[in-house]
């Protein structure tokens, strides 16, 4: 009797514990839910603010749909069943332009009205590349396009009349213009010339005049025009780190080339974005990213708008992605680290927020893992920032870790929703994303510190981060994997070569294995670009030893941990036959290796799922034991 009672008592406790544990831990969510495409995306407001257009799959391909802002009937206005529509925008209050990219025949532009009628083709010039100069604004039915029609190596500016389909050369490219910039009226007034190594900002007052250089700077600096000032003539707002370390929001006089005023700057990070109103020609805010994205408001009404939005959507990051012409209605996109967010329609006048669509409704917020900002000191006492995602409901102790170095290396990991990170976290791995030296966003000096330090100082920064995780007791030092794409994959292979003790296994997606090949991808006639690469990566003629020492392809004999390699059939940065040789040698040495070659240039969703499912198996085989 007593034993029976004890047994029941024990069972009750067991049950309680089990149910508690279950409550804390996240459920295992199917892989497909993480990587499915959003149902509705690319919301655009019509210039009069009465209609909303968006992309949505129809017969498995993206098509354009239109709906009244008040809701009601949704009209599909395109019927593409062979190719995805990659781009669309409103040509006027009634018509929508959309682009279809046929890989064999080149890009096509079509115009159709919001009822799906009066369909016509307005552009078809064969195999070439097309860029929109003013991506979301069509003035007087004139679309500004940059096309490499005349010469495949550079882009001229064209005007396309969507009413007549008439294509007119607007400005010839002398061969060095890398970017055309138009003002709000669609006038080409700014351009950036580049020889790959030095950039020059060009300006002209009117289209009838010739461009004149404003300022020249090496590729290490950057001036990104934001818009024209409404107060002073010939003055632009720009983000610039010319002659300073951190990117700042400044005012530049295009006649003298002088920087007139520093509008906003941050001590520790770059100003990464600026809000600008094409209607009032005013700066609205300066955005920067410390541990997460923040805004410094430069306009009171904008501040009030955002304050109201933040009240309505607490604890989220808010972006305005599209506005109508009067800037009275806008499309708002939100996200957090645990939510891929949603699209809303916001009426500034009525202060009314309407949800349009969730980005991914199959990932419940309460099952996602929080992304934490962390920082540590690396080997030379430099502070490295990064992000750490601990699986939900798990104590941050002795966990298997996936180190996820970002690509680039001129990019960064940011706070926000990342399906890949959330997928790994859901499978029980902590995910570590260090912003090692060479990452963008922490100033010019920090970025340049990564030059020619591939595989050396950059790798040591990653290693220091891993060691920090071990020291803090977060990582189980026997279960650490390294995985990345592009440069991240290169870091992973390097880690396996030179720190086999630290990592249990490594995976690379389109990672480079040979820096000679990486540099060789720049054609030799782009001498200035080549110089830039030599400066960033290394000069293969003079630093052959360094490049050899940090290229994993020369060090297969040092790899003993399991390897996962995924490679695209066509990737100029990573020669497939070279990767084949790399894999062959690993195979000969009986290193456990999973090798996936992908046939398609554009990854289909199925291939993506297949890739992650194989990666999941690879990690669980190697880290869960």
């Amino acid at each position, binding site marked *: 009797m007593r034993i029976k009672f004890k047994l029941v008592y024990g069972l009750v406790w067991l049950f309680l514990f089990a149910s508690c544990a279950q409550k804390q831990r996240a459920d295992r969510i199917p892989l497909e839910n993480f990587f499915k495409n959003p149902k509705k995306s690319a919301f655009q407001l019509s210039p009069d603010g009465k209609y909303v257009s968006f992309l949505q799959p129809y017969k498995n391909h993206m098509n354009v749909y239109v709906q009244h802002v008040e809701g009601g009937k949704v009209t599909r206005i395109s019927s593409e069943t062979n190719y995805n529509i990659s781009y669309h925008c409103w040509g006027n209050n009634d018509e929508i332009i959309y682009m279809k990219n046929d890989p064999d025949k080149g890009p096509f532009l079509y115009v159709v009205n919001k009822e799906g009628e009066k369909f016509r083709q307005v552009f078809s010039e064969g195999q070439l590349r097309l860029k929109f100069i003013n991506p979301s604004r069509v003035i007087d039915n004139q679309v500004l396009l940059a096309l490499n029609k005349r010469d495949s190596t550079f882009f001229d500016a064209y005007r396309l009349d969507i009413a007549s389909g008439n294509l007119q050369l607007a400005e010839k490219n002398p061969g060095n213009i890398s970017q055309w910039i138009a003002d709000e009226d669609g006038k080409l007034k700014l351009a950036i010339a580049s020889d790959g190594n030095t950039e020059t900002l060009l300006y002209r007052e009117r289209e009838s005049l010739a461009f004149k250089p404003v300022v020249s700077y090496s590729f290490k600096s950057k001036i990104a025009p934001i818009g024209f000032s409404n107060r002073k003539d010939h003055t632009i707002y720009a983000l610039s780190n010319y002659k300073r370390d951190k990117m700042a929001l400044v005012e530049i006089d295009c006649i003298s080339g002088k920087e007139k005023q520093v509008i906003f700057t941050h001590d520790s990070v770059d100003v990464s974005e600026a809000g600008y109103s094409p209607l009032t020609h005013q700066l609205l805010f300066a955005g920067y990213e410390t541990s997460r994205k923040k805004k410094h408001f430069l306009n009171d009404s904008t501040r009030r708008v955002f304050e109201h939005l933040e009240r309505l959507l607490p604890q989220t990051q808010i972006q305005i992605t599209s506005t109508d012409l009067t800037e009275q209605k806008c499309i708002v996109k939100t996200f957090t680290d645990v939510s891929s967010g949603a699209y809303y329609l916001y009426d500034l006048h009525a202060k009314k927020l309407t949800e349009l669509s969730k980005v991914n409704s199959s990932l419940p917020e309460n099952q996602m893992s929080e992304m934490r900002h962390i920082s540590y000191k690396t080997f030379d006492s430099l502070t490295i920032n990064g992000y750490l995602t601990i699986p939900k409901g798990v104590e941050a102790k002795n966990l298997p870790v996936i180190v996820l170095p970002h690509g680039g290396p001129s990019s960064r990991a940011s706070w926000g929703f990342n399906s890949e990170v959330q997928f790994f976290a859901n499978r029980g791995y902590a995910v570590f994303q260090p912003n090692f030296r060479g990452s963008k966003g922490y100033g010019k000096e920090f970025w340049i510190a990564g030059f020619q330090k591939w595989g050396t100082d950059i790798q040591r920064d990653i290693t220091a981060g891993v060691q920090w995780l071990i020291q803090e007791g977060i990582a189980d030092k026997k279960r650490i994997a390294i995985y990345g794409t592009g440069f991240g994959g290169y870091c992973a292979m390097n880690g396996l070569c030179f720190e086999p003790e630290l990592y249990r296994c490594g995976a690379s997606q389109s990672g480079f294995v040979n820096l000679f090949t990486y540099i060789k991808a720049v054609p030799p006639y782009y001498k200035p670009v080549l110089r830039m690469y030599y400066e960033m990566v290394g000069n293969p003629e003079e630093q052959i030893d360094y490049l050899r020492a940090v290229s994993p392809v020369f060090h297969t004999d040092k790899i003993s941990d399991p390897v996962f390699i995924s490679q695209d059939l066509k990737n100029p940065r990573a020669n497939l036959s070279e990767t084949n040789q790399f894999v062959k*040698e690993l195979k000969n040495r009986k290193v456990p290796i999973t090798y996936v070659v992908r046939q398609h240039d554009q990854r289909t969703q199925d291939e993506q799922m297949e890739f992650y499912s194989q990666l999941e198996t690879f990690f669980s085989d190697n880290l869960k034991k």
Partner: protein
Amino acid sequence: MRKARFQYRHNSALNVIFLLLIGVSFVVAMFLAHRLTEKYVENEFELRKIDVLEETLKPYTEFFQNRVPEISFYQGYLDSSSAIKYVDTVFRKYPFVKKIEFYDTEVSNHRVAGAFRINHFSMAPQAIYDYTRSPTADSIVYNKRKPNSSGSFWNMDEFNNMAAKFSLYVQSIEEGKPLQSADFISIFYHVTHNRITFMNIPREEDMHTYKDLMLKEQEKSPVFQQDIVSFILDPEKLNIRNTHRELYQYIHITPIVYESLNTDPDLLNTELPLTGAFADYKLHFSSSRNHIIREIYHRLVPVALAIVMIYTVLLFIAYLIYRNLNINKKMYSLQYDFINNLTHEFKTPVSVIKIAGNNIKSAKELSDRERFHYGKILDEEADKLNDLMNKLLSFTQIENQSIHIKKERINIPQFIQNLVDSYQIKLPDFKIEYSTRGVTTFRTDPVLLSSIFQNLMDNANKYSLPGQKSLNILVFTEKGNIVFKFRDRGIGIPGNETENVFKKFYRIQSQYNQQGSVGLGLAFCKELINLMNGTISVKSKVGEGSEFTVVLPFEL
């Protein structure tokens, strides 16, 4: 016919046939084993050379598959100083590389003196370096070739060859059609007699650029870098790894046309051509016949041992079967004897009883003396029968282990005196003496002990000549045991029979043994003594007498 089935059968012929068969099959087995091993070794001699070839060419294969294509990884960026580092690692690791020629090549559409040119495509070595091993230390001697007066170089066959192949290939590639890496081996490698020439494989994009250079009228192009490296190999330095010393005595690398002139008929030869850059050479293997024979025996020994083992086991089992059969046969004849004896034994008292009975029946009247006489005879013979039956019964009981020992303390002199007294009455001419040294009391089962005593005393009486019937009993203790010695002066037992006297139904064939004995006495004694955890043994001499020694564990 049925009758024949129960006849006694003779085994001797069967035994002989069996042994003969075993012997013949053994010889055949040995012979076959030898033949097979011989064939096997001869086969091995032909087959194992592939292993040797593989082992010998292993460094070459590794060199060809890993180190040669490594040049491609440099993407044409090799120059004289970086090449020397590469050359150094190659020289260190691969002794068969004798010399390396490095053509630092430039590809452009410029008109260059001494260039290999097709349309606008020209390919010319910007510099040529020859790297050789220094004869003294492990350092590298390198030499930059000087161009001749017209600006070109001498001895550029390898370069020209490669340039011709490559430019033809460039001409043949088509836009939009992926390059087949299977073609690369024939384009970028040039493997000839003792030489491998390799050019770094350009990326696909570069090949298309080269094609444009060749076929399109263009401005002066930039200069593209290609590396052509030619390795001159020395087959003599190839390290022969004889992984099968037991098969091959001598292995040499010889030119492919080489024929051995050794006419020794006892020298076995075989050969295998080398591959790759060494295709003009072969491995020549030879061994003397003695060497092979030694190997044959070497391999035969374990096989032969195994065969011998199997046959030994077989014979041993056959022997065991034979022995069991023999014992069974003896048992059978013993039991036969026993029945004979027993019948005889029973017959005497039964016939005496029958005569006495007849006499009593036929007599008109019996005098007191006669009645007493017949009564005594009947009584005595009935006792005899009873005795016989008891013996038989108790013996069976012991054999079935149904006797239980009931121990009690006995006084030894008193126990013996009682027995002696009863014998003195029965057999006045049987002299029994006894002495006990140091022991008076002893715990045992008196019934069993007196049984042993009676048997041994009976035997002493039975197997002694009249007038010499005497028995000396000696009792003493020794190492925790009590020892009883029964010494008589009887006829004795032949030495070869002393073991057998304790066997059931066994009786020594002698004139003293004709009557009154079943051959159970000593066997019965031994069973009893075994039951009491003791031993019995006998020492005897024919004509002088026997001495039985009974040793029992001494308990107080």
